[in-house]
């Protein structure tokens, strides 16, 4: 593999090298054969050594000027021919070399060799990102911000170029290849122990399925996060134990349903999943009443199901669907006032523009808003590039599939147990979420929380683990005592406790901890720092426990 570059080069250079060797051989022969004359006029022949030396500096156009003796007319004629022949020979060789350098097979061989070396030298944990479209780029950017390394496999060279232009703090090796083929995954370091996870984020469900399957078989310990836009593929992935499947449409449907049924739960989830450096803007809960859904594709179907499950009245506008079981449908495109009026836009409370064309979606929303200014608008944004238009329109909810997938993956990678907590929040009722929101709000104000995991093991919490091996019982609440002043508490809250891989939300403050427990905390960055002192500093730990 490594020598393939050299082999390709040599193969192509055979003809020019042989040409040059022949020119040299003929030239040297002539120089030796053709007689010159010495000072006394006696015939004189060059030796092979002299001829080779003369040939070397003449053929390379260096023209050293040092010749053994003045040439005879015959010799001069021969040398003139040689000069032209050798220049052509060298030009042929140089042209072949340049052609090789420009040759795509040669270049990709070089790229591959470089990539293989980068992977071999990668000693830190890394994630393998398959598919570097909008979603992959978003995930990559955030992984880099979190200080994690990643490796990219994508078959579109434009996207690899895009990666090269991204402003990353650490280099991300990229391979331009089809991720569906297992050999490329192995080349990208799938079998390396440093590979912490694989993200299958291509826009092709079947490719993601192939990646998930390959990882399951080739490196079963590595977690797989896969994007799946069709329910059948998602079920298929789940059947062989894909760790985390993100279906943006289904996820958005669930989001909308939860926002209708339990607004506080949805607000809590939004708040917990906002990236730490972003400002959290609580979204307006969607109103109850009559809804118009324009575009009945994968997205429209999920949204319609979610709305109807909440007992809302829905009318669908779609160019192909004239009759749908149980739903009132209007044929048309939604960009024109006619079908919108027919769908009852005047009396509706909300409109969903959910086609796969961004301009059509904006057009639907603008037209609908003109006919009924009080409408709640839900917009599907397909391309990141359309962002300026969507920001200008300011829909009540803008659904960006790539962002949903990226956030879903990142929440999982950034904070273990967060997914379990979110599932728990969805399962509980609105009042529970409201209480938790209030509790967190009193600790943090309007800031977005920092989430972190604490592992009660000697390796990660040496001081506390030391204390716990003695007879001292440590309750959960002890971990939020301020180590600078034990009468005060840190602005942090234990959101969950995992014992023996089983997760429970909101443990009691006086519940006793055991070695090996894992806790999920939310709080300020300062609280996280103070807590790390308490966990690792024996003095701080003793001070807190002594109280």
């Amino acid at each position, binding site marked *: 593999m490594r020598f393939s570059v050299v082999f390709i080069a040599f*193969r*192509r250079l055979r003809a020019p*090298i042989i040409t040059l060797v022949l020119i*040299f051989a003929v030239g040297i022969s002539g120089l030796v054969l053709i007689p010159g004359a010495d000072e006394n006029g006696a015939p004189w022949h060059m030796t*092979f050594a002299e001829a080779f030396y003369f040939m070397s500096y003449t053929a390379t156009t260096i023209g050293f000027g040092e010749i053994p003796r003045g040439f005879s007319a015959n010799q001069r004629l021969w040398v003139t021919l040689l000069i032209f022949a050798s220049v052509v020979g060298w030009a042929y060789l140089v042209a072949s070399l340049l052609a090789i350098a420009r040759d795509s097979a040669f270049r990709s061989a070089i790229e591959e060799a470089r990539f293989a070396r980068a992977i071999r030298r990668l000693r830190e944990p890394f994630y393998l990102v398959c598919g570097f479209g909008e979603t992959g780029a978003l995930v990559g950017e955030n992984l880099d911000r979190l200080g994690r390394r990643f490796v990219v496999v994508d078959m579109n060279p434009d996207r690899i170029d895009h990666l090269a232009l991204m402003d990353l703090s650490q280099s991300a090796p990229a391979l331009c290849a089809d991720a569906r083929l297992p050999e490329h995954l192995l080349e990208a370091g799938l079998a390396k122990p440093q590979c912490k996870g694989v993200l299958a984020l291509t826009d092709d469900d079947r490719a993601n399925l192939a990646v998930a399957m390959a990882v399951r078989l080739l490196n079963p310990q590595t977690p797989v996060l896969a994007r799946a836009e069709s329910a059948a593929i998602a079920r298929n992935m789940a059947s062989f134990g894909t760790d985390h499947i993100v279906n943006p449409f289904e996820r958005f449907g669930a989001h909308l349903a939860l926002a209708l049924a339990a607004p506080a739960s949805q607000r809590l989830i939004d708040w917990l999943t906002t990236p730490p450096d972003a400002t959290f803007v609580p979204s307006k809960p969607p109103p109850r009443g009559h809804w118009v859904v324009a575009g009945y594709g994968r997205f429209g179907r999920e949204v319609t199901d979610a709305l109807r499950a909440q007992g809302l009245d829905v009318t669908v506008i779609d160019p192909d669907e004239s009759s749908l079981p149980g739903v009132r449908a209007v044929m048309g495109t939604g960009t024109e006032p006619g079908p919108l009026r027919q769908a009852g836009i005047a009396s509706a409370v909300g409109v969903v523009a959910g086609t796969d064309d961004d301009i059509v979606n904006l057009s639907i929303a603008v037209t609908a808003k003109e006919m009924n200014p009080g409408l709640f608008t839900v917009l599907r944004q397909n391309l990141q590039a359309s962002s300026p238009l969507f920001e200008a329109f300011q829909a009540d909810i803008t659904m960006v599939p790539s962002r949903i997938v990226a956030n879903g993956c990142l929440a999982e990678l950034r904070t273990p147990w967060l997914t379990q907590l979110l599932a728990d929040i969805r399962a509980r009722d609105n009042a529970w979420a409201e209480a938790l929101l209030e509790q967190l709000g009193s600790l943090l104000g309007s800031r977005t929380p920092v989430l972190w995991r604490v592992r009660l093991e000697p390796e990660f919490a040496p001081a506390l683990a030391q204390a716990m091996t003695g007879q001292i019982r440590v309750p959960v609440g002890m971990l939020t005592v301020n180590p600078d002043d034990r009468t005060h508490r840190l602005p942090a809250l234990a959101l969950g406790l995992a014992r023996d891989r089983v997760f429970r939300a909101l443990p009691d403050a006086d519940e006793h901890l055991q070695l090996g427990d894992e806790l999920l905390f939310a709080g300020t960055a300062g609280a996280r720092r103070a807590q790390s002192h308490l966990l690792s500093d024996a003095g701080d730990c003793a001070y807190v426990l002594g109280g």
Partner: protein
Amino acid sequence: MNLEKVVFAFFILLAATLNGGFVYGDIDNPDHHSQWEFFAALVVNIIAAVLKFGDRTQLGAIHLATSLVACLQLSAAALLWFFAPTTAAGTLAPADMAEVVSLAAGALFANVVSVTLMIVETARQRR
């Protein structure tokens, strides 16, 4: 008939025959060893080596190695000829001649291996 194969076999064989022709004769008698034959052997050996470039198979690698050995031996002999003092008659002293010829004889051995390889390869394909 494959022209490329003909050219390949031709050069390998020619490299061996020229080399053999040069070595043949009394080892230290300059009259038995033609300078021209040596020159031709060196050039043909270099061409044979270049022809073997870029074959990734195991046999191809050994082929290339034998040619590289022959070129190295002959280059050493050429350098020796280059630097050795010539006698009044314009030929080498018998001791120097013997050294040049023995180096060339080493190259001949490598060339014989190369020819054998070629024959083995051909015989295997026939089967």
